[in-house]
């Protein structure tokens, strides 16, 4: 199989973005990574369809482009992580954002209907057992 070997500078590209870019091209390429030193990642790629070298070099170019995209995604995600988490928490559990989790079931999703809305004077909340891991 033809292969292309090149290095990436880990000061320029995070390992996370390398993972992302490679993951998105697993249908076209076989990847092998090694660390030459603390700052250098060795990348070896082979095409799944055993393409000739010019075509493989083109795929390498696609991978490097995708790496840039991934680096941007990682950067945006890092910068905005806390705001996203706060927003989604707010949306998911509303007013009881501080303490509620799925065990407490603040929306009563796991509560049988009759127990919640039946003829009893006060609905009794069904305590869920702790999930076994």
């Amino acid at each position, binding site marked *: 199989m033809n292969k292309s070997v090149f290095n990436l500078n880990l000061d320029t590209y995070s390992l996370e973005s390398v993972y*992302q870019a490679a*993951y*998105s*091209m*697993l*249908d*076209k390429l076989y990847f092998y990574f090694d660390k030459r030193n603390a700052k250098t990642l060795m990348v070896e790629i082979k095409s799944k369809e055993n393409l000739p070298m010019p075509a493989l070099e083109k795929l390498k170019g696609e991978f490097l482009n995708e790496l840039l*995209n991934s680096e*941007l*995604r990682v950067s*945006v*995600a890092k910068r*905005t992580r806390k*705001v*996203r988490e*706060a*927003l*989604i928490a*707010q*949306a*998911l559990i509303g007013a009881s954002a501080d303490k509620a989790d799925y065990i407490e079931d603040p*929306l*009563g*999703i*796991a*509560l*049988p*209907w*009759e127990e*919640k*809305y039946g003829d009893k004077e006060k609905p009794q909340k*069904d305590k*869920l*057992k702790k*999930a076994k891991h």
Partner: protein
Amino acid sequence: MKTKKTKPAAAVTEVVPAPETGAYYFEPMGLGRMLVTNDWGGWAVLDKNEFTAFSSGKLDCGHPKYAELSESGFFVESAGFASCAEKFANLHSSVFAGTTLHIMILTIRCNQKCVYCHASAKGEEDKRFDMDVETARKTLDFIFASAGKNLVIEFQGGEPFLNWETLLFSVKYAQDKAAKLKKSVDFKLVSNLSSLDEEKLHFIFRNNIGVATSLDGPAKLHDAQRVYSRGSSHAQVVSWIKKFNKARPRYLKKGYIYRITALATVTRQALGSARALVDEYLRLGLREIYARPLNPFGFTAANWQRIGYGAAEYLAFYRELLEYLITLNLKGVKIREKTAQTLLTKILSGSDPAHMDCRMICGAAIGQLAYNYNGDIYTCDEGRMLSVMGDESFRLGNVADTSYTQVLESPVTKTLCVSSCLESLPGCSDCAFKPFCGVCPINSYFSGSLFPQKANDQRCMMNKGILKIIFEKLSRPEDRKVLASWLNEGWYKDVFKK
């Protein structure tokens, strides 16, 4: 006397920094364009210069695209924390609604043999595979114990009309329970229509049951893939669609709300016939078409060599179908595509169409349950389909001895939640289509892994491909107008003038 000319004072220009972008995702759309999206359903298509300015933090308030991006929540200052949280909740509201869709398999007997039957239907005569009345009662007791207030009970098979006795009982019993418990219940029924008669037809109307059937295209194609021992299955479905439409106006006055809907299961043989398929639907007065790709279950698995195809082939078909539909709409012929309508509900109106495998967490168990003819409970219809193939991995229990709480606490339920949560899946968590997409983890499981490599996942390719085509069309004002009209509920009422 000459006045001394003085230099004007240097203008003081205030440098206003470009607004900071919030969280966003992006996907190349070809021709240098980039789709940008965010978690609260905002989206825009930017050209190369616009995206460069946006992503480098240089798109200022004076930029032509600023207003659109600001309104869609792409900038931190103008997005509004509470507003974004509310939009996120609306976009995913079905996740919080509890188990609302309940699929009752009244029988797995059938009077047709379809090449792609996902139920692996049995022969018409073997009544061992019917749900008896007592099992139906227990099933409905279980259904009404679930948390959802507004329930949908969908009768399926096999061919559900073959178990007429249990269908009659189930509808009556469910109506009585709903009244007693102050819940609402909508009935749906999926049928090939070939065992309908006048009594059954009027039962459907009187009890407000929505009917969905299969129409795979013109007679030659339909009959070849939906084999009916007593003749043409196409002739049967056409005949009963016409009778339904003829009788419907009378029942509209009495409160019947549904139009008969049809779906086409696309096999390899249908890939070159997108236009013929649409024309057949129009001929029968059907104004909605659901061109469903093959799922891998049941008879499809055995027949794959003959009828199967890859994502690229389906997407070529889908593009042709959608473009033809848009062309027709522009000429005043109203017909829409169901997958597009589902996705557009999220994209254009920011609300949740409650489609079980188009959610941020799949609806398996937490949004829907399937009850087999023998009372066995499955996470969803796909879980039930796997059971007929010999894999009981998604069986949650039986209505005779399993509670709703046990179903939700099951490790199987939790596994499906984890393996379908887009926020945590590689390939999904940073995908531009994440706000509008969903994963079927059972499909993934059947293909080899609950956590498939997305680049190799045909279903992911299909979902992405369809969304790309839709966003491409939305970028063209004329096409966007057509697609937006597909969200109007009464958009084809004129077809059924009283």
